């Protein structure tokens, strides 16, 4: 479902989502370092709750999926399923060097690789692990993308069109 910015209820929903995005944290087989930095974001020093960002256990309640770690072969189908359970519009932040490109685990026998091989990613955060302020910056960047997507009526404007879609548009 794409939220239209033309109706009042659509604008209200976009506004509300931007003021209080709910996130789900998913460890796709990383080393915990990114996870403890994300949890540190929720704690008094960095305190992302002042931006309305809440951590939720269920992906069905979440607007943003924060994925940490390179994807292992066992976690890949689970990551895909968790992402599929999220309601639209959904956004994905891949935290850390491993999530972005496999990092130090690149090419190991039990790895699928980066997160974007399994699900589409909106924001990548570099670092091993990134500092909490960089993770907060990623969430804020994601909120900016949300607002722009609402104006454009979906994320299609900033993603590469598949060859089928191009053929369809020409025909």
């Amino acid at each position, binding site marked *: 479902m794409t939220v239209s910015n033309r109706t009042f209820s659509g604008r209200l929903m976009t506004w509300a989502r931007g003021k209080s995005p709910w996130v789900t944290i998913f460890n796709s*087989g990383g080393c915990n370092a990114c996870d*403890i930095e994300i*949890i540190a974001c929720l704690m008094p020093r960095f305190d992302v709750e002042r931006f309305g960002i809440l951590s939720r256990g269920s992906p069905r309640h979440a607007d943003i999926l924060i994925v940490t*770690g390179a994807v292992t*072969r066992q976690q890949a*189908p*689970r990551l895909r399923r968790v992402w599929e359970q999220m309601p639209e519009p959904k956004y994905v932040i891949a935290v850390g060097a491993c999530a972005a490109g496999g990092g130090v685990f690149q090419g*190991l026998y039990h790895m699928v690789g980066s997160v974007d091989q*399994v699900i589409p990613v909106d924001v990548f955060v570099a670092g091993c692990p990134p500092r909490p302020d960089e993770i907060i910056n990623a969430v804020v960047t994601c909120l900016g993308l949300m607002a722009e997507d609402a104006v454009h009526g979906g994320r299609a404007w900033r993603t590469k069109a598949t060859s089928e879609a191009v053929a369809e548009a020409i025909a």
Partner: protein
Amino acid sequence: MTRIVVPIGPQHPALKEPVNFRVVTDGERIVDLELNLSYSHRGIEKAAEQRDFIRVLPLIERVCGICSHSHATVFSKGIEEIMGVEIPPRAQYIRTIIAELERMHSHMLWLGVAAHEVGFNTLFMWTWRDREAVLDTLEELSGNRVHYNMNEIGGVRLDLSPSQVEAALARMPVLEERIRAYVGMVEDEETMLTRFRGVGSLSREEALSFGAVGPTARASGVDYDVRKDDPYLVYDEIPWNVVTDTNGDVYGRTKVRIGEIAESLGIVRHCLENLPGGPIRAEAPKAAPPGEILSRYEAPRGEVAHFIRTNGTARVERVDIRTPTLANWTSVAHCLIGRPLADVPVIVAAIDPCLSCTSRITLVKSGGDLGKDAPPPNGPRGWSR
């Protein structure tokens, strides 16, 4: 008797890491527990055989993000022992400082998570706030908050300047005061006493027979600490005590960990004040002679052991990692039998499980059939977007 299987994980609100419990219950009572620990398996041991020692250290450090210094130190300690390299005293002191700071941050992290599991979120917030002081110290000394990367074969990577030592020492009084507050809190905070006392009891005999290690064993009165029993680095020259307790339950483990935070603080302070001068690394040869060694180390969660076999090249022939969490799982399964389902989070959290450490094996079904979990035949890219 009706048996109900309650699956928990790998993605579950109560879990921080991917693990799958199949809790078999009869009504409210747990009768059996099955575990699948292989979700974080990455194949680090195999990869370590294909990289030289310099490149293995960053990889070994990423076995676990919380006790990263433990894995790097135990590995370099083993390689140095095979090579016959004696690391300079200053490097030993710096390794000890980082190791004890890591223990403090890990135990504070644990205390917060354990409090969170029993619904005492105030303490969760407090410990994580105070933990930031430890992380700041680590960041000042090593440049990183989480993966310090201080080790090198033959010594440490970075030297500590006098101003860094001074800044680290200046943080100690604040931490000391906070730790005193925790000691008081664990003894008379009703929320913790009610949920921790008598939960997850493990007698001394049981702890010994299940091979429990670390704070889990020490809370049951087992006086076992690698730092005392097989001293490495500088633990035999500095004053400190092994913290034990006789309660044997989650309350005892909490007391042991808080006691260890205080001990670690004392060690860090002593090492910073008595930091010897001299070089920070010794010249180490590139290749290690053929040999085998079992290198042991007291990580925050207990004894971590690396079995290393070298074959005369700059790579290891085999490295086998045995982590404390693996040693403690059997005791968890035993503690859970007969307890209500609501005790699962607190008893599991009480051993401070680290799944990325423990995921050393994975099961492959014969015939290569992964069933409905298999990625599409044309690879993961074949998933629709």
